[in-house]
């Protein structure tokens, strides 16, 4: 059984999730917090990778989707007193709608124009959060009220101030996302994405509606990113404009490139590496941006496939 490539890769993915679960027992509070953040941002990168790694569309504006879920979850809670689970579902739905709209417009462009257009849309969204600071709190942001720090689903109480609970929720969300993405990319849709990435005109000549295929990638990618944003806002009870800034779009790109675009686990690995690399250097902001720049350049020059991509090419062809 274990020698069958597809079984092997299923095993790999399940053990990755299991490993993160077992890991939680030995982690200090500090690392538990960090890994919770990493896991949420991994979902963001995972979503980014659907578009970039599989469908071959390089977006420079994914912060828009992250922020979309972020605010769509946080604002109703802050202003309207919504419950957490409802706000979360609402944010996911809004993200899907926004991704569809942005996709329908931006996918009229190709290559470099697509990169710039997504960048600009995202910039517009960022400026919007700044401009309407009476509602969004702008740069300073808003802290979510007390009632949003816990919620109940079918009788079970979840306390969002407990690091342990947050860790397991993040892990749960990540596992669901990983399995969903794994299913998609290994099914017919994944084949269509790769076909578009590798040779769009050929794919069109075979009868595929490539625009629709790309739009599907955009919607799935945007919704996952939005879901990650919503989870982040709810877990840490804070919403602020920084999370809509271009920095977050670049981070998603960086995690994906570093871990390996076009591999399911790559973006997750990439976010872990980046976070702990930065954690290693103490002076946070300056070192972080400088490291981002250096790593981006080095990756493109010497390591364009990323960690998992290189492993996959050299030894483990079965990694999906």
């Amino acid at each position, binding site marked *: 059984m274990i020698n069958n490539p597809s079984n092997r890769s299923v095993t790999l993915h399940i053990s990755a999730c299991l490993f993160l679960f077992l890991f939680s027992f030995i982690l200090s509070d500090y690392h538990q917090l960090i890994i919770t953040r990493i896991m949420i941002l991994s979902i963001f990168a995972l979503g980014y990778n659907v578009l970039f790694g599989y469908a071959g569309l390089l977006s420079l504006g994914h912060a828009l989707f992250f922020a979309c879920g972020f605010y769509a979850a946080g604002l109703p809670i802050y202003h309207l007193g919504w419950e957490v689970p409802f706000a979360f579902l609402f944010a996911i739905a809004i993200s899907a709608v926004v991704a569809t709209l942005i996709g329908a417009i931006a996918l009229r462009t190709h290559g470099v124009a697509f990169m710039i257009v997504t960048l600009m849309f995202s910039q517009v969204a960022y400026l919007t959060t700044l401009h309407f600071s009476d509602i969004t709190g702008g740069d300073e942001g808003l802290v979510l009220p007390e009632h949003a720090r816990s919620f109940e689903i079918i009788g079970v109480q979840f306390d969002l101030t407990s690091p342990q609970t947050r860790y397991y929720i993040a892990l749960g969300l990540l596992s669901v996302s990983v399995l969903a993405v794994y299913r998609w990319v290994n099914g*017919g849709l994944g*084949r*269509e994405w*790769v*076909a578009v990435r*590798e*040779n769009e*005109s*050929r*794919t*069109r*000549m*075979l*009868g*595929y*509606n*490539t625009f629709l295929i790309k739009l599907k990638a955009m919607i799935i990618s945007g919704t996952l990113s939005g879901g990650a944003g919503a989870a982040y806002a709810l877990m840490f009870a804070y919403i602020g404009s920084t999370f809509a800034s271009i920095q977050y779009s670049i981070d998603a790109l960086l995690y994906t490139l570093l871990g390996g675009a076009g591999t399911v686990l790559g973006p997750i690995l990439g976010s872990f590496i980046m976070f702990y690399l930065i954690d290693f250097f103490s002076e946070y902001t300056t070192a972080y941006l400088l490291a981002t720049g250096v790593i981006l350049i080095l990756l493109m020059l010497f390591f364009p496939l990323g960690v998992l991509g290189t492993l996959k090419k050299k030894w483990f062809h079965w990694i999906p």
Partner: protein
Amino acid sequence: MSVLYTKSLTKRFDGIIAVKDVDFSLKQGEIRGIIGPNGAGKTSFVNLLTGRLAPDSGQIVFQGVDITSQPTWKRARLGISYSFQITNIYSGLTVFENVAIGAQMRIQQSSKSGLPFDQKSNLEEIVDSCLSLTGLDGSRAQLATELAYGHQRLLEIAINLAVEPVLLILDEPTQGLSVDEIEEFTDLLKGIRLNRTIILIEHNLPFVMNLADRVTVMDQGSILAENDPKAIQLDARVKAIYLGE
């Protein structure tokens, strides 16, 4: 009954008429050669058929459906499959995946029309049959880019076969092939013709004359002559344009 016909199809580029008033008709199951000197409008004509170009005027009807204003991918779904002059494959993917992309299209199409399908096993079945038809079964797991040029041309055909086209358009299929390879290729086409209608655009006259049921000669954007291969070879006008070239 004609599977495809065009009515006074015309295409201009910046004042130059590439395709002029072409009335063309194709019978179900025939192999049609289209020949003519460079710049005769063959490729433009075929691009009009596949939808890569939009005509300025005229009409294209495929299996009774007016497809004149339909996009490329819709025409492909109806069964018009085009094999590129410059080998156009998924070079970064394996041979299997290349053909699977075509096969998946066929499965999607047939499951839409209500046929029950067990997708996965069916996909592999289709791929394997296309690979064995083209003699590529040995290279299943190889990357397409690693194939020899002649095999890449075969892969191109295999991808097209996988979608089970009604009409297969081959643009200069023998270009760049050796004499031996052309011979194998001729056998291959004879083997796969079955019920398919095929258009061959070719420079290699012996190849066309050997395979085609009928030959259309194009010159300066219009159809100069159309007949069976023997008659075409004897046609004085055809000789004139080829000798005059």
